[in-house]
């Protein structure tokens, strides 16, 4: 049996490859115009992870698919495999998140999620937990939760799914239990105690309240994070930490946070 397993795997992979159509739930992450009236969409699909497809003719006002393929909505799509880019053959809107679209802050936060997912996810590979996480985050934005708290929960969830969960209970240098004082965050992947922080550079100081939020999310206590009244200063502290950490992982600066800052939504 041990000898058969790889060839069975190979055959099933081949069969999957031969399937010329597949159906999946998907979130549209970003899109780019191409050709006369077509668009290239970057999708997060439930079945195949992040993938790029062509939607033909969707820029024409009469297109039956156009309204179903707006960014940051959940759609059920039927995709035809081709030798080049796959082609969307049908699309049906599942959740449009209409309330989210009425708020500049919520919709630009969704744009930030799109950038993160496109930047961090591998192509054509399902990363467990990411699709439900992204759908849940969009739902929370749609329900009117503070986009800063939703963004924080989403960022930490995504980092965990990708294996970059930062360590927030003990110092990542000396392993000491962290005291309830202002400690620091290191892009190496977690909190550093005051003693170790003295001897190191490029650390980001974090207040006690910001550390508390990190720990709550780390323990999976999402509800309190969404419901707590958190000051703007704490959110910006956490944003600096998370954006720096993600930029380090991705190898480049994020652009959506800069745009959100430019929009002056505060």
């Amino acid at each position, binding site marked *: 049996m041990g000898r058969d397993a790889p060839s069975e795997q190979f055959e099933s992979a081949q069969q999957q490859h031969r399937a010329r159509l597949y159906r999946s739930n998907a979130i549209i992450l970003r899109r780019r115009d191409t050709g006369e009236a077509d668009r290239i969409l970057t999708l997060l699909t439930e079945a195949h992870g992040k993938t790029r497809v062509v939607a033909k003719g969707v820029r024409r006002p009469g297109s039956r698919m156009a309204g179903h393929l707006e960014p940051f909505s959940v759609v059920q799509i039927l995709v035809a495999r081709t030798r080049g880019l796959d082609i969307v053959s049908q699309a049906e809107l599942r959740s449009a998140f209409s309330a989210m679209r009425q708020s500049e802050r919520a*919709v630009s936060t969704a*744009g930030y999620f799109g950038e993160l997912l496109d930047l961090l996810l591998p192509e054509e590979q399902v990363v467990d937990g990411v699709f439900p996480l992204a759908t849940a985050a969009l739902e929370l934005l749609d329900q009117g939760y503070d986009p800063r708290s939703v963004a924080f929960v989403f960022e930490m969830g995504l980092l965990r799914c990708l294996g970059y969960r930062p360590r927030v209970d003990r110092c990542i240098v000396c392993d000491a239990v962290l005291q309830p004082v202002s400690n620091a965050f290191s892009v190496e992947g977690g909190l550093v105690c005051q003693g170790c922080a003295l001897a190191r550079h490029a650390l980001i100081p974090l207040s006690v309240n910001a550390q508390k939020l990190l720990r709550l999310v780390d323990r999976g206590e999402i509800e309190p994070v969404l419901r707590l009244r958190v000051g703007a200063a704490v959110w910006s502290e956490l944003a600096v930490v998370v954006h720096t950490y993600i930029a380090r992982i991705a190898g480049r600066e994020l652009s959506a946070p800069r745009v*959100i800052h430019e929009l002056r939504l505060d």
Partner: protein
Amino acid sequence: MRPSKLTAEPVSRLVDELGRLPGIGPKSASRLTYYLLRASREQALALAEAILELKERVFLCSTCFNITETDPCALCLDPTRDRSIICVVEEPLDALALERTGEYRGLYHVLHGAISPVDGIGPDKLRIRELLERVERERPQEVILATNPNIEGDATAMYIARQLIPRGITTSRPASGLPVGGDLEYADEITLGRALVGRRAL
């Protein structure tokens, strides 16, 4: 295209240049190149001159930022246009599309894009500051925010409206709804919802 002993350097250079145009792949680029190679000298020169003139004689109007040969553009100077109303569009082609309807007699303002955080495009990369300055200067009665009815266009319209409303300017957005010749069954819920909200008495 990779240089090969079989293709002369000017040929592969043109193939490369044409291949950079939107919607043109390497095969189409080669086909166009070999067509031009066989075409008359006059035809090839006419194309080359047209491209040169495009880059040398066309620029952006300093008032509305539409493409023009004169500054201000003919439309901004036209005394018959209604100066109390400015229509904001994303691209020059959108202004052209609105002009074709024959329903609009006001002025335009071209943003050259739309706000899109996912692509790193914020208000500072668009002609929004120029629009706000222009509105202060010209004090129109109404500004129509005719950005595309999609997520980026809606976000752009919301951002501009947020700046204009405190300045006491009426802002509006073109109605969105069912396309002529369309089918209710295929309409998505957002379009159908907006169409119902914006319904009209017969």
